[in-house]
């Protein structure tokens, strides 16, 4: 079902769709809320006072713009392309997630809602939402799978410190997919006074479009910084893709430029096993969380569980715009394994003194594979979507045994 790439389709979805992907596959109860959200969003982004307030928060609260950093020692070590890192890890709360949460929090207030809800996997979006709720004086409930609560104990406590209520989800596989189901179920019951802050470019329209618009600041800054620092655009962009919000935000301002763009999915224990999260690589189109998109599913359309060492990529769906970018051939999607990501994480930490999130480490692992094949005239920009403090426990489990022998 390959589609011809059409940049018009990307500037704004038509009838809530990017090509054939996207849409609003939700219970009737939510439809009115989605239409209201769409018109409030369109109004807000046209409104200078909204834009000004958001810009102020992004500048003085979140700490934007984030640096576009030349990874000199990593580039030298790999001996090929020059590698630049877009440092979203330096954003307040440690990841790109806050860009979107801040903007949606402001939108919630503008719509007169006092309560927000959010789903979270690794806890980064939960922390970002809880942070925004604290800053804007909103109440916040975060839905989180019991399995993830166990894996991400520190982030759970962090959300509680911020005053959010963490609601454990035990249904299904008790991970991000189920937390999202439960958040949607809660929203169906409380749609009139609650705003649902979706954390990625997934879900029913207008979420994938809206979240992209709130994350495209990553790519816009990268573009300006690249021109200012290098006098040109990067030759290639690489970002990790779970739901895919950091990647869409990074890619979007460049989709009409003549540069290479690559998204990296989590191959988990390998794409030849059944423990992976390589949705675009191995899935086929279907409906998850209100959106038509590539999906890991069995022959009957039952959603399958994803696996990745990084909780943020552990998702059987993907943003519908990525599905469009894949089928139209504009973006290449590839995948790297848990082990490759862990090794890349360690390499960056040792060479640059930057501990990347395991999600972002997937993008780095792909860079490591590619950089040496390129000449020194080539520049690769990588979205370092988050920092790895939250992953120290996982890293300790993996590298702990090796330490003794080194």
């Amino acid at each position, binding site marked *: 079902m390959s589609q011809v790439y059409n940049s018009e389709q990307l500037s704004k979805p038509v009838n809530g769709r990017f090509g054939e992907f996207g849409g609003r596959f939700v219970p*009737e*109860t939510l439809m009115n809320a989605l239409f209201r959200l769409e018109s409030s969003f369109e109004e807000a982004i046209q409104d200078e006072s909204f834009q000004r307030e958001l810009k102020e928060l992004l500048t003085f609260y979140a700490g934007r713009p984030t640096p576009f950093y030349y990874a000199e020692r990593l580039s030298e070590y790999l001996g090929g392309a020059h590698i630049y890192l877009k440092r979203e890890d330096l954003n307040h709360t440690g990841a790109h997630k806050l860009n979107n949460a801040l903007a949606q929090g402001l939108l919630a207030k503008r719509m007169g809602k006092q309560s927000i809800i959010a789903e979270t996997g690794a806890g980064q979006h939960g922390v970002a939402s809880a942070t925004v709720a604290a800053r804007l004086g909103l109440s916040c409930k975060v839905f989180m799978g019991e399995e993830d609560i166990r894996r991400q104990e520190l982030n759970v406590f962090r959300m509680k410190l911020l005053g959010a209520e963490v609601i454990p989800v035990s249904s299904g596989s008790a991970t991000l997919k189920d937390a999202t189901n439960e958040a949607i179920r809660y929203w169906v019951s409380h749609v009139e006074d609650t705003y649902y802050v979706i954390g990625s470019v997934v879900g029913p329209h207008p979420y994938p479009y809206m979240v992209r618009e709130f994350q495209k600041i990553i790519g816009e800054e990268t573009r300006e910084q690249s021109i200012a620092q290098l006098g040109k655009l990067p030759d290639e962009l690489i970002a990790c893709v779970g739901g895919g919000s950091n990647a869409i935000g990074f890619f979007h301002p460049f989709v009409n430029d003549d540069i290479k763009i690559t998204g990296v999915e989590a191959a988990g224990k390998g794409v030849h096993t059944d423990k992976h999260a390589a949705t675009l690589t191995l899935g086929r189109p279907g409906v998850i969380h209100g959106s038509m998109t590539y999906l890991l599913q069995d022959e009957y359309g039952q959603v399958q569980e994803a696996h990745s060492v990084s909780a943020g990529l552990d998702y059987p769906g993907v943003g519908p715009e990525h599905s469009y970018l894949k089928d139209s051939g504009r973006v290449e999607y590839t995948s790297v394994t848990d082990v490759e990501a862990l090794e890349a994480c360690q390499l960056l930490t040792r060479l640059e003194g930057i501990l990347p999130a395991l999600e972002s480490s997937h993008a780095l692992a792909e860079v490591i594979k590619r950089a040496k094949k390129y000449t020194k005239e080539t520049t690769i920009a990588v979205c370092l979507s988050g920092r790895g403090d939250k992953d120290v426990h996982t890293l300790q489990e993996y590298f702990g045994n090796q330490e003794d022998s080194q």
Partner: protein
Amino acid sequence: MNRVQTRLESLFTDKSKKRFIPFITVGDPSLEVTFQLVLKLVEAGADVIELGVPYSDPLADGPVIQRASKRALSQGVQLPDALLLGQRLREAGVSIPLLIFTYVNPVIQYGIERFFADINKFDLDGAIIPDLPFEENERARGIAAQHGTDLIQLVAPTSQERLALIGKESGGFLYCVSSLGVTGVRQEIPVEVRELVEQARANSSAPIGVGFGISTPEQVKEVAKYADAVIVGSAIVQEVEKYTEELINETTRNSALENVKKFVRTLTDAIQ
């Protein structure tokens, strides 16, 4: 247009009679038990039956039907089994309207065209797809109609101006969701549902069924005052769940089936 009246149309011709529509999950606790449960539902006075297809991610369902889905999936029961069950029920002489209740993704994977063709082929009457709202179901509506089957449309308390849009297009009956939230037993059915039904009537010529949360004879009786049909799901599924072991065990199955029937009878008795 000259065509045969559908079963649902015939059923709702006599507006003075109120109709009872139970839902059960196909394959909970097994396909064989579901077959027998349907026969009991018919004996207990069901007018239409919704056959629920188990799904891994039932977004519109509360815990009771989520658990039923899980049990059915663990039996390997899927959409094609629900269609074949319908066929088997027809062969066994069940003549009331039978509807397939399913989430949209299994239908997309099966093929929307093939799905409605099979509904027709197996002599079933239509489908309810809770996550395929009006704006997304134009194609499915057309296909359903081509095959002489109905895609039941849903309206909710939040539908407001959408009522006019949706009301025009509902085949079979219009499914009014009683209250905000997912399926499941509720202590009280909000009084506003009566208003919703009246607004729906003003916007649609289709008979009105009300569902979500209705679980007791008192609630059935109350809703039947203004609706044409009352839909009960979770309360019956909960009853089936209560007798899971007995239903699986062949020596105790019959008495368990009778117990479920007795419960359903209290609901059908309340309706007239």
